[in-house]
């Protein structure tokens, strides 16, 4: 679930990011537009100011030209007047008129050019009047050369003509100066406007360059991030695919059959092992209800089981393994071991069943049970055998013994000494056979007949045994005490020590016999030894003497059943220990044995027979 949640959380990131980036770009563009508009307005203003000022400057330059024109045209007119007065040529009159016309034209032009300057306008009006006055000086008297050249000359030289001309020149000069000043002013304004415009344009250029650079950087970064995010996404997808492939591979190669079903019991996945186990191919069962894989009784229960689980949350098999049955495609029903686990993906319940065909295990279990059964019955037979020996063999033996006795008693006068000897031998053999049977019974009781384990004080027990055996006076018994106290069956312990000690007494061949008994605890075990200075046992017999009915001396010389050491070995082994002999023939024997103390509970589980 967590794995699925992560990409969802991540997908919000880009959206937030994109929104942020877009708003940033929008903001940058808006800012650029606003700045551009402001800068544009500034440029427009500067340009229009520049144009206006340029126009005004052009007017000033035209005005200055007009002033020059007036000056020169007026000079030409006066020159022609003089020429006329001297020469009387009418051609001069016409030329003067043309000059006057030019003067008027210049005046009209100035009138237009200086219309927006009241000061210059006022000066122009004065100039115009003065010019008119001057021109009248020549024109006042009826023009005619013959009439009075002298009068005109007089007027021109001494009269107002010269004065007027001086005035005109002054006025024009004044106006020219004023206009020059204005022109200078305007030129400065043009320069100023030009600089302003240039500065603004430079600013605009800088701003554009800066914002473009910023945009470039931003976009570049964004693209980079996107590429990275894309690569990461791709990598992630690849990992996901890889992990899914791995999952598939694991599921498909698993030795156990794996079946995934949804909350409705519909099979979602069916691995190769499941195909082998059930004989269906995955395509055959995917999409079908899982009950096709179950034998009838489970068949019906299953659907209600899942819905019950989903409603109540009570699981009967989920989360634990159990043994049930499956049905193959061919209808064969076989035992399976099934464990079901639940997964929740995006709110959907899926159940994964891992199962194994345990037919073979069941078969093995059955075989084992059969073997156990056989073992138990053979064990029983062995026990019964001992019992049969005890009763059915002893009864006729006793009969033989009794009859031999009665023969000897009732027919004593009719029997010769040889017959009586035979009957005596017969009675002896009966007794020996009885002892053998008793030995077998004794031996078979070890492990078969159980006694409560109690604390056994060996020091005390050994003394009791010695009292019972009452060794002859030439045999000394030493006990290297204190002997340990152990938890055991007292009868078995008594049998064990009694057999070893009685053997030592029975076979003693030395005039000064010595029997030494010792015992101590070490490494969780009890170590004992019973040593004697008797005849000893040759190494080749060391194994044999622990076998049932094996004796080294003829029974006629020393009575022995050959059960004692076998019995001792059986008891020792029942108590998790071992027994062995170390001996130097002619000098004596030492019997060593160990008994395990700690695992008394384990011992009580061992079942032995015969």
């Amino acid at each position, binding site marked *: 679930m967590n794995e699925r949640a992560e990409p969802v959380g991540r997908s919000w990131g880009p959206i937030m990011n994109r929104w942020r980036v877009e708003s940033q770009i929008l903001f940058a563009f808006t800012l650029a537009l606003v700045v551009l508009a402001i800068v544009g307005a500034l440029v427009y203003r500067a340009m229009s100011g520049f144009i206006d000022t340029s126009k005004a400057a052009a007017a000033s330059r035209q005005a200055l030209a007009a002033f020059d024109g007036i000056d020169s045209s007026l000079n030409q007119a006066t020159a022609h007047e003089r020429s006329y007065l001297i020469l009387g040529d009418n051609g001069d009159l016409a030329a003067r008129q043309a000059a006057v016309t030019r003067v008027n034209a210049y005046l009209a032009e100035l009138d237009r050019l200086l219309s927006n300057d009241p000061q210059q306008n006022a000066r122009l009006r004065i100039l115009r009047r003065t010019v008119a006055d001057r021109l009248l000086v020549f024109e006042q008297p009826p023009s005619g050369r013959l009439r009075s050249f002298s009068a005109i000359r007089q007027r021109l030289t001494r009269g107002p003509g010269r004065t007027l001309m001086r005035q005109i020149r002054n006025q024009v000069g004044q106006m020219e100066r004023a206009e020059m000043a204005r022109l200078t002013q305007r030129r400065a304004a043009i320069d100023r406007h030009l600089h302003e415009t240039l500065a603004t344009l430079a600013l605009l250029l800088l701003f554009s360059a800066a914002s473009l650079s910023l945009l470039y950087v931003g976009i570049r970064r964004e693209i980079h991030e996107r590429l990275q995010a894309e690569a990461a996404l791709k990598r992630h997808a690849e990992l996901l695919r890889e992990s899914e492939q791995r999952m598939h591979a694991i599921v498909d190669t698993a030795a156990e059959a794996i079946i995934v079903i949804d909350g409705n019991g519909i099979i979602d996945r069916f691995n190769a092992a499941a195909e082998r186990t059930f004989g269906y191919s995955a395509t055959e069962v995917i999409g079908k209800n899982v009950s096709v894989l179950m034998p009838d009784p489970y068949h019906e229960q299953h659907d209600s089981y899942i819905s019950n689980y989903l409603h109540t949350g009570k699981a009967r098999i989920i989360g634990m393994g159990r043994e049930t049955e499956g049905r193959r495609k061919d209808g064969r029903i076989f035992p399976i071991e099934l464990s079901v686990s639940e997964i929740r993906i995006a709110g959907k319940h899926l159940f994964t069943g891992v199962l194994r065909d345990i037919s073979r295990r069941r078969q093995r279990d059955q075989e084992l049970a059969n073997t156990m059964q056989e073992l138990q019955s053979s064990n029983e037979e062995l026990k019964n055998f001992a019992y049969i020996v*005890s009763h059915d063999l*002893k009864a006729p033996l006793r009969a033989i*013994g009794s*009859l031999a006795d009665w023969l000897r008693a009732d027919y004593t006068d009719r029997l010769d000494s040889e017959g009586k000897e035979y009957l005596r031998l017969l009675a002896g053999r009966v007794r020996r056979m009885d002892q053998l049977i008793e030995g077998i019974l004794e031996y078979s009781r070890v492990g078969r007949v159980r006694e409560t384990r109690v604390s056994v004080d060996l020091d005390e027990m050994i003394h009791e045994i010695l009292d019972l055996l009452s060794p002859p006076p030439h045999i000394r018994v030493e006990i290297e005490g204190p002997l340990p106290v152990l938890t055991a069956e007292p009868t078995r312990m008594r049998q064990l020590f009694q057999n070893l000690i009685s053997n030592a007494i029975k076979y003693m061949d030395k005039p000064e016999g010595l029997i030494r008994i010792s015992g101590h605890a070490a490494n969780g075990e009890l170590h004992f030894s019973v040593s004697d200075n008797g005849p000893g046992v040759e190494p080749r017999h060391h194994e044999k003497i622990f076998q049932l009915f094996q004796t080294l001396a003829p029974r006629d010389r020393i009575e022995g059943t050959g059960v004692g050491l076998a019995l001792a070995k059986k008891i020792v082994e029942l108590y998790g220990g071992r027994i062995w002999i170390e001996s130097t023939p002619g000098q004596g024997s030492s019997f060593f044995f160990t008994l395990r103390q700690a695992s008394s509970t384990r011992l009580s589980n061992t079942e032995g027979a015969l």
Partner: protein
Amino acid sequence: MKITSRPILLVEDDDVDSMAVHRAFKALHITNRLERAENGEKALAYLHDDTKERPCLVLLDINMPVMGGIEFLRVVKDGNHNLRRIPVVVLTTSAEQQDKIESFDLGVAGYMKKPVDYQQFIETVRTIDRYWTVSEMPE
């Protein structure tokens, strides 16, 4: 025997063992009549037969065909108290702990092992006789 007028019931399948008891009785001068039943079933039939004289003691073998000694004891224990009052001494080959426990659980008065040696057997019977000479028993 304290009571000499009543018979002793021997439940024994082996003829030689039965002979041995007879011989021992004779040797020890035990005057009680010895009645023999071959198995538990026959013993029960004898005890339930009103025409037969009620024994003062039962000597019981354990291992017998048809009905063994332990089963006989079970029937007697579940039966009427007349039967239960007769002392039963087990005289058997079996030295099995199980047999001893079951016998005493079912209320036997004694448990004797038949020795293989006849002389020893006589001693065993002698002991039984002496005991029941000294011991009181219900009429």
